[in-house]
């Protein structure tokens, strides 16, 4: 407890100190150092809570002058799990961020940037530890504001300001739903979490409010439109934190409310599965259509939130229909994916930051051949790509496997109508898996393989060691979780049981819920075994080739390109052409603008193709809605024409109406 609070204090004091240091280089060091120190303290504290069982949980309550509020912090299995994710990623991103920002030292006000970063960390840690609704909302708001200010860091870059505003509006629209939610839940008068309860027949309303409010933060389709704008606009270590862990506070909030609401209704499960499937498939399709590396990664966050929600949906469906094994597998898979996605998504964002830093662009079509120039960034990006595509022997496969397993178990048991929910989960995961593989083959292949497409890419250089090491650690974690998955699942068990128990399932040692966990315990050692065998066989095959080639002629040559004498980098396949056939198959789901100038005549001179993927939800939904609001505001403005005579008329009319009303004529 004291460690956790100390961590929060270190973060806030360090942030303030960095602000005082201002533009001096000291600010950069001070900010990063306190972020690392505070993050390590909370990491150790929350890990001890999760490992220590019920005895290590704590609860701290201090009065607060705010009516209805109290400074009530607490740590249970769910909070501790999310606090571990937040602390771990924030520490690594801070180490990276110090070097990433080093060339801005003295020119920009880095003190302010680090203050916002530290406040962001502290508020995220506060969100997961709050036990009072008012405190929760204050922390939530601080989190939105500090991340908004971080997004605005590069406000001279085109697009950043509009991205920031989009984010701010979306965050507050989401918060509006949360306000209503907590008002409904707190109708008894107390806003302590322990006293919150849904009134009769209001559980469904509360679920929908929580889904919209927290879904906006998590980036569920169709509430995701801010995410691909805001995440790429932020500096890369901030993108890593935002995409890796901040959006997961939405998942935390949803789970917390589900736990408060108790036994769920069946339709909640179907709604979650439906939204998860839509987010997953559309997220990865939009990602495939992007040309900007960080935007592509941001859309993949939408996809992975979809996978997490598919797991939660399966869990809720299982809890509602009393299928404990399916519920436990769904929650275990969803929660493990929260952790896994935090790791590989922040790894990929840090990698994208290194690429942007080195080559000065994030445009896929301008990059290429970077693996030779940036070996560490390239190798770790490859591991992250394989992990996010869900390939064994890495961590992404393990969490997807658990969700699959829950769904397949339900199908194999032929358990009533819920089977179709399970089949939908399997189908969605299968489609997402194939599309994610295609998308990361494109992202890694175009950026890091082949020849550089521009001079900037050709002149790229590897990042400094302080930026490389966080990526190496994260890539190592991807492999370690893949190989050591039984241990990780065991560490996650208390959190899974806490969620399943709160949703009305019995998790005693001899209850059916343990079938789910028993299955996990039985299956995951095999995954480790085959993963290990796979690595041994890769080594064996490599050794075989080495033996065969020893003493034979191994020569360098040119890529054989149909006999062309002088291949140029421009002849390479591009990211757009790579993705085009897939996008054509799914053209009804995504609207891609195409401007084609085909080659004409017998001796064609110039031809061009421009594609631009717009988010149909922005174009078809939000933009018209906001334009309508603007139009309405414009109409209302006619009342305020700036002519005194008209204003006097208003006053006279108002008096007349009041007079008529008061006299009761």
């Amino acid at each position, binding site marked *: 407890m004291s460690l956790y609070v100390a961590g929060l204090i270190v973060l806030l004091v360090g942030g303030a100190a960095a602000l005082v240091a201002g533009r001096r280089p000291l600010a950069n060091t001070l900010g990063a150092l306190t972020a690392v120190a505070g993050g390590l303290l909370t990491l150790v504290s929350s890990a001890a809570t999760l490992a220590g069982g019920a005895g290590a949980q704590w609860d701290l309550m201090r009065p607060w002058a705010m009516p209805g509020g109290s400074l009530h912090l607490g740590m249970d299995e769910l909070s501790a799990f999310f606090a571990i994710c937040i602390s771990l990623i924030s520490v690594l991103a801070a180490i990276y961020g110090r070097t990433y920002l080093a060339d801005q030292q003295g020119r920009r006000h880095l003190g302010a940037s680090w203050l916002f970063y530290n406040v962001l960390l502290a508020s995220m840690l506060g969100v997961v530890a709050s036990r009072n609704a008012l405190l929760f909302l204050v922390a939530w708001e601080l989190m939105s504001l500090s991340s908004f200010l971080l997004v605005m860091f590069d406000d001279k870059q085109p697009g950043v300001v509009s991205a920031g505003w989009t984010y701010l509006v979306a965050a507050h629209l989401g918060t509006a739903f949360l306000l209503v939610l907590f008002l409904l839940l707190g109708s008894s008068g107390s806003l302590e979490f322990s006293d919150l309860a849904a009134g009769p027949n209001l559980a469904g309303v509360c679920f929908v409010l929580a889904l919209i409010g927290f879904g906006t933060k998590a980036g569920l389709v169709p509430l995701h439109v801010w995410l691909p704008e805001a995440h790429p606009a932020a500096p890369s270590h901030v993108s890593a934190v935002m995409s890796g862990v901040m959006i997961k506070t939405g998942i935390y909030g949803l789970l917390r409310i589900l736990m408060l609401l108790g036994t769920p209704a069946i339709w909640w499960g179907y709604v979650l599965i439906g939204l998860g499937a839509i987010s997953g498939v559309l997220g990865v399709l939009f990602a495939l259509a992007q040309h900007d590396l960080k935007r592509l990664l941001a859309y993949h966050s939408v996809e992975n939130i979809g996978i997490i929600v598919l797991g939660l949906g399966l869990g809720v469906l299982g809890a509602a229909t009393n299928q404990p094994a399916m519920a436990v597998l769904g929650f275990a898979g969803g929660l493990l994916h929260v952790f896994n996605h935090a790791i590989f998504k922040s790894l990929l964002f840090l990698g994208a930051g290194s690429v942007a830093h080195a080559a000065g662009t994030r445009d896929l079509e301008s990059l290429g051949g970077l693996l030779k120039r940036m070996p560490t960034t390239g190798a770790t990006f490859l591991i992250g790509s394989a992990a996010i595509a869900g390939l064994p022997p890495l961590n992404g496969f393990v969490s997807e496997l658990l969700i699959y397993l829950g769904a397949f178990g339900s199908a194999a048991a032929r358990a009533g109508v819920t089977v179709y929910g399970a089949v939908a989960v399997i189908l969605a995961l299968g489609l997402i898996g194939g599309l994610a593989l295609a998308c990361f083959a494109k992202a890694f292949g175009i950026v890091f393989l082949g020849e550089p497409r521009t001079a900037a890419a050709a002149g790229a250089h590897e990042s400094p060691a302080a930026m490389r090491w966080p990526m190496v650690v994260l890539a190592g974690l991807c492999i370690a979780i893949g190989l050591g998955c039984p241990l990780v699942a065991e560490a996650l068990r208390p959190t899974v049981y806490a969620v399943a128990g709160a949703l009305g399932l019995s998790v005693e040692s001899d209850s059916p819920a343990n079938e789910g966990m028993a299955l996990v315990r039985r299956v995951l050692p095999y995954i480790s075994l085959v993963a290990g065998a*796979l690595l041994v066989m890769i080594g064996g095959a490599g050794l075989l080739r080495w033996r065969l080639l020893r003493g034979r002629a191994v*020569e360098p040559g040119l890529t054989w*390109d149909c006999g062309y004498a002088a291949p140029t980098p421009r002849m390479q396949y591009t990211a757009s052409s790579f993705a085009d056939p897939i996008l054509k198959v799914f053209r009804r789901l995504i609207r891609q603008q195409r401007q084609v100038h085909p080659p004409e005549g017998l001796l064609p001179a110039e031809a061009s193709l421009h594609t631009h993927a717009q988010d149909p939800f922005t174009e078809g939904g939000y933009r018209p809605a906001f334009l309508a609001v603007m139009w309405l505001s414009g109409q209302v403005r006619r009342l305020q024409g700036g002519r005194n005579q008209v204003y006097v008329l208003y006053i006279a009319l108002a008096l007349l109406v009041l007079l008529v009303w008061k006299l009761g004529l």
Partner: protein
Amino acid sequence: MATAVSILHVVLALVLAPLLLGVINRVKAKFAGRRGQPLLQAYYDIAKLLRKGAVYSRTTTWVFRLGPIVSLAAVVASLLLLPLGAVVAVVAFPGDLLLWVYLLGLMRFVTVLAALDTGSAFEGMGASREVQFSLLAEPALLLGLVALAAWSGGLSLSQLTGTHSTGWLTGTAGAITLLVSASWLAVLLTENARIPVDDPNTHLELTMIHEVMVLDHGGVDLGLIQYAAAVKLWVFAALLAGVLLPVRTAWPLVNLAGGVAGVLAVAMGVGVIESTMARLRLLRVPQMLVAAAVLAALAVVLVLR
């Protein structure tokens, strides 16, 4: 005894896999009225390639060299999870079917990356088509697995094709068997780059897929790739044979022999298809794969209704 037979299946698969290519080619030759190449031609080709040196493009990196060895390791690992009809897999556990599917995904991922590593437009084109078609084949494969899992009540490939009987081609069981088999036949042809999706005999055509991805591989690497491709064909043929042509007796060795005969029969079937069909236009391939997924979905509905 059962374990020994399972291991024997893996050994047989590793030894006999290139023979499947010979069988297909012999069937095609018979249809064309030719004498055809020797049955063991694939072995000669691989042995020849393994005796050669190597030329690596200056554009390529270690990813290019990693491709063939990871492909081979992944496909052999998938073989360990694969039952042959009633012959259970060497490693069988609940959920192994997903590991099996994703190991083949790993194989595809490294092949595609190795192709992109050359910087050649040809290979990029092949890589693009490979990911497109295989992502459309995945729903058909998974839905077929769902149908069989629901029918058999098992979560392991060995239970799906092994312990229960789908009841040879009559009633609901027969309908499910036929639907899943038809669906998986399309998946087999797609994943193994056979007609009507891809033509393994054409080099240097703008429409080819798998062959173009490995255009820059040579010598030992090409040998490993061709061998891995043969094992992959065995893997899919064994899965299909286990469902469509099940041999389930009390004698494990008979089961094994029947299973191998089934695999060879599937290879002959592929040869017949290649002899009697033309290639589909590339734009038609997605439609075929969606149709395959629909057949598998129909099987799921039949089981669950």
